[in-house]
Each structure stands twice: as C-alpha cells, then as structure tokens.
C-alpha cells in the first residue's frame, strides 16, 4: 500500500512537471514578451534592456525554474491588462467560484444520490426509465446551451430569477443547476449500479424479510455498503465542476475565476490565463491524488 501511494505521488509530481513545461512552452512560443512591452519604434538598445529586465537573456531552464518557483510561492506576475499582481486578481475572484461550486455540488449530490438510489430500488419502473431518459438527455445537452435555455425560460419568459450576476441566493439558482447538471447523470448511474448490487445481497434481503421499510432499507442498510464507488466518483465530480465553471460563469456573468479566464482570453492577458490554468491544473492533479489515496484507505479489498 505504501508503495502504491509513493507511486501515485511520484506520478502526480511528474504530471505537474509536464503540465508546467507545456504551459511555459506554449506561452513562450506565443512570442517575445519583451517585444510586447515596448513600442515598435523603440531602439534596439531599449529592447535589449527590456529583455535583461525581464530576465529573458537567461538560459531557458533557468527562466522556467524561476517561473515555477515563484508560482509555487503564489507569485504569478503582473496582469498585463490591469497592472496589478495576478494573485490579487485571483484571490478577489476565488470566493465567487467556490460559492458556485459548493452550491452546484450540493445540487449534484442531492439529485444524483436520490434519483440513483430510488431507480435502483424500483428498477424497471416508470421512475427508473424517466431517470435514465433524463440522464441520457442531460449528457447530450451542451452546458452553455442549457444555461442559456434556463435563462430564457426562468429569467426572460417567467421573470422568476435573475439572468446573471452575483448577489442574493436567487442569483445562485440557475448557475448552480447548470453547473451541477452535467455530473448528475454519471453520479446517478454509479449510484444505481452500486445500489443494485448491494440490494441483492443477503443482509438486505434479511432486512426486508424482517419487515424494514423500503426507504430505510435503501438508505440505512444498502447505501452505507454501496457507498465506496459512489464516494470516489463524487469526489471526482467536484474536480469536474472546476472545469465547468469557465463556461457557466461566462453564461451567467458570474464574477469568479472562470469569467476571469475568459476576460484574460479576450484581453490577450496571458499572465492571467497562464496563472489560472496552472492553478486549476494543480488542483485537478492533487485532487486526483487525494482521491486515489483515500480510495486505498477506504477499500481494504485493494491490495497493491
């Protein structure tokens, strides 16, 4: 087991190395930052001076190392557009993204677990079929389109909820549903299949024979034992939400990190895009690592 964890850690570190090299390489391929900082008519000496100032005359590995070690300390450089540190920009936007992610996650868990659990208990029923139809349709609808359709119905036509921005709880409803919708289908499927397996086990049938009610059988007896794959999937879902937040924040003008990425895209503000891609990537890689390790601890059946 220790060997397995060590292997996963080495793997995560290697993955981060590759990701940072790709980000660094891509940004460097995009052009000479020194050229972008000075005007076209500036004399050559000024250009060389700028290169020295930006440390671009140093060897590439040294530049890479400087960038990575500064990023590790939370220094992502200065936003080309706003002229303030990128870390400052990110930290003012982070709470909004977290708020949305937590709300969306709540929605995903509530929908995925309930629908999946009841589909398993009443499999073959109308409810089961409807749930699966919902899942199939949910996976086929692009999330940006679903968000816009929700805005159309609930904001434009019915005028029940605001179409965008951040404020009271009513602002949170549509973006949270849009963001949380995509993983519902997957969570529902996993829950359904794990629960079907558990529900046909001996102790569950014993509970039924004893006359325990169906709801109690489902959540008290079965769920606890079918929970492991569900928990693993549920933690991966949270990482997936981070990815979806770029699209959903764009649709709802939700002032989080995702919208900041798009602003960076539109302003050609590489510093910002680069920093956020690096942040999101490291969350995903280390999140995966933690899920892997937890899985080993929680599942004594795995002997690596």
């Amino acid at each position, binding site marked *: 087991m220790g060997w397995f964890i060590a292997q996963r850690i080495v793997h995560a570190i290697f993955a981060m190395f590759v990701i940072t090299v790709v980000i660094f390489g891509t940004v460097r391929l995009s052009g000479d930052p020194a050229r972008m900082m000075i005007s076209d008519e500036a004399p050559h000496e000024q250009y060389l001076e700028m290169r020295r100032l930006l440390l671009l005359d140093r060897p590439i590995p040294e530049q890479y190392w400087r960038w990575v070690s500064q990023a590790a300390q939370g220094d992502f450089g200065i936003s080309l557009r706003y002229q303030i540190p990128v870390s400052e920009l990110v930290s003012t936007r982070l709470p909004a993204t977290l708020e949305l992610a937590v709300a969306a996650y709540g929605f995903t868990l509530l929908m995925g677990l309930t629908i999946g659990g009841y589909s398993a208990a009443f499999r073959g029923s109308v409810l089961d079929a409807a749930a699966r139809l919902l899942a199939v349709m949910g996976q086929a609808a*692009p999330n940006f389109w679903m968000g816009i359709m929700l805005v159309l119905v609930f904001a434009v036509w019915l005028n029940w909820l605001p179409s965008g921005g951040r404020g009271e709880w009513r602002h949170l409803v549509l973006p949270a549903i849009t963001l949380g919708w995509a993983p519902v289908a997957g969570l529902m499927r996993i829950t359904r299949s794990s629960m079907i397996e558990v529900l046909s086990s001996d102790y569950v049938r014993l509970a039924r024979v004893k006359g325990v009610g169906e709801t109690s059988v489902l959540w008290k007896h079965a769920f606890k034992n079918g929970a492991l794959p569900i928990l693993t999937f549920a933690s991966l879902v949270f990482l997936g939400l981070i990815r979806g937040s770029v699209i959903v924040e764009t649709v709802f003008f939700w002032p989080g990190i995702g919208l900041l990425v798009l602003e960076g*895209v*539109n302003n050609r503000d590489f510093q910002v895009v680069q920093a956020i891609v690096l942040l999101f990537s490291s969350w995903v890689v280390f999140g995966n690592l933690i899920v892997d390790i937890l899985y080993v601890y929680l599942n004594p059946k795995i002997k690596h």
Partner: protein
Amino acid sequence: MTTDIEVDKAPARMVAAPSRFAMPILPALSLAVMVSLVLVALFAPLLAPHSERHGQLQYSLEPPVFDGGTTRFLLGTDIHGRDQLSRVIYGARISVSVVVVILVFKTLIGVGLGLVAGFFGGIWDSVIMSTVDILIAFPAFLLAILMAVIFGPSFFNVILIITLFIWPPTARQVRVEVLALKQQDFVTLARCAGSPNTRIMMKHILPGVIPTVLVITTLQVGTVILFEAALSFLGVGIPPPAPSWGGMVSEGRAQLTSAPWLSIVPGFAIFVTVLATNTLGDWLRDRLDPRLQTL
C-alpha cells in the same frame, strides 16, 4: 414462498446491463440521424436556400416560421440578416468535418500506440502508458483554451488540440485488448509458423481490437462535438464568420430577449446530434463490448 427472493437474487448484473433504451428502434433512429447529418454536410450547397455568410440587412432578425415568420426564412435570420437554416446546414458541415478528421487522427494514434505498447511491452509500454496517464489527468479544456489563445483560433488548431486530448482512452483500451489477444493460441501458432511481428500485429491482433475501437470512437463523437462547441462558444474555437453551432449560440445570445430562436436552434442541433451518437454508442457497447461500462 422463496421464489420471490430467488427472482431478484441472481440476475442483478444481467438486469443492469442491457439498457431499456437498447431497443432496436432507438439505435436505428440514431443511425438515421447520423446518416442524414453526413448527407446534409456533403450536400450543404444544394440544400441551403441562402448564403450562410452574406446576409441581407433589410431582413435582419426575421422570426422563424413557427414564430410568425415567412417561409422565405424557415428558421429566421440573425442580426446581419443571414438565414439561420442555411447557417445550421453549413454548421453540420463544420461539425462533421471536425469529428471525422479528429476521429481519424485519434484512431491512428490511439490504435498505433496501443498496439505497440501492448505488443512489445517493456520500455515502449512504460513510456506510452505514462503519457496516456498524464494526458488523461490533464485539465484538457483549460489547456485547450490557453493554446487557442496563444496560437489563435482556427480550424487547424481546434483539430490539433482536441486530437491531443482524445486519443489516450483508445490507446489504453487497445493495449488491454492486445495483452489478452497476445496470449491466445492462434497468435502463438502464427509465431511458431514464423510470422514476423508486423504481420502478427496487422493480421491477427488488429482485427480483434476493431469492435472496441468502434465502440469508443462512436461514444467519442459526442465528446468531440461538445468540446468543439464549447471552445467555439468561448470564442477560441472555429472563428466566425464560419457558422459553427457553438459559435452561433454565442452570437445569438446577445438577442436572447428579442430573437430567442438564434440561441435555441443551433444548440438544439448540437443536442440532437450528441443524443443520437451517444444512443448508438451505448447500444454498440452493450452489443459488442459490455465490459466498457466506464466509458
């Protein structure tokens, strides 16, 4: 008395496997949708009633026929007076070509590397599978945005970026298949008969992985379409004025209140296409390769 218990005991897995939607009518319908989409893409110039790029400003924001419009513009027009039906038809061309090109490349790369990793093992296997693991863990969408920002949005870049992130599952699955096939008697026999490695790979192993590749590839059609649509929606995919469906939703959003059809129609086209390919893919998987449940 015990029958009732016996009934729900054994077939737990068997009940779970064949989907309720695996009835032949739905896959057949899905296949029909996919075939007509390809036909629409091929014959777009014949089918489109108007130009997809040049509008007539006097016809700006005409409603579609189901919303009080005329038959001149069946699906209405956008703010530049471009006929939406024609744009959706040409959009099919973009989606189909993106999907075909990407899936051809990803199949070549994925099958090739999967074969090599599984067949030769050793260092080949380690290097290829580490790459696969890392790419699967990559936050593909964000890196795609970064790359698109830096290299600029273009058809070629969309192909390159999506292909980069879409081949690893194929390689991984092909490798697993190859490892199993390698142990089979007919491979050992071919080896004893003196067949060279390349011949064994091409003649004896490759045909065995085709069903798996077919299932994965069908299921990935939806992934590719949604990926491209999302990039185009954010403005880092297929650049305008090309009528990419994702880009059309993004452009139409500005007139959501006055002309909702501009957001509804192209998104619905994406939805129907992905729904059809996923349904067909699920059915194929249940038929050909039920082990691929996680994909």
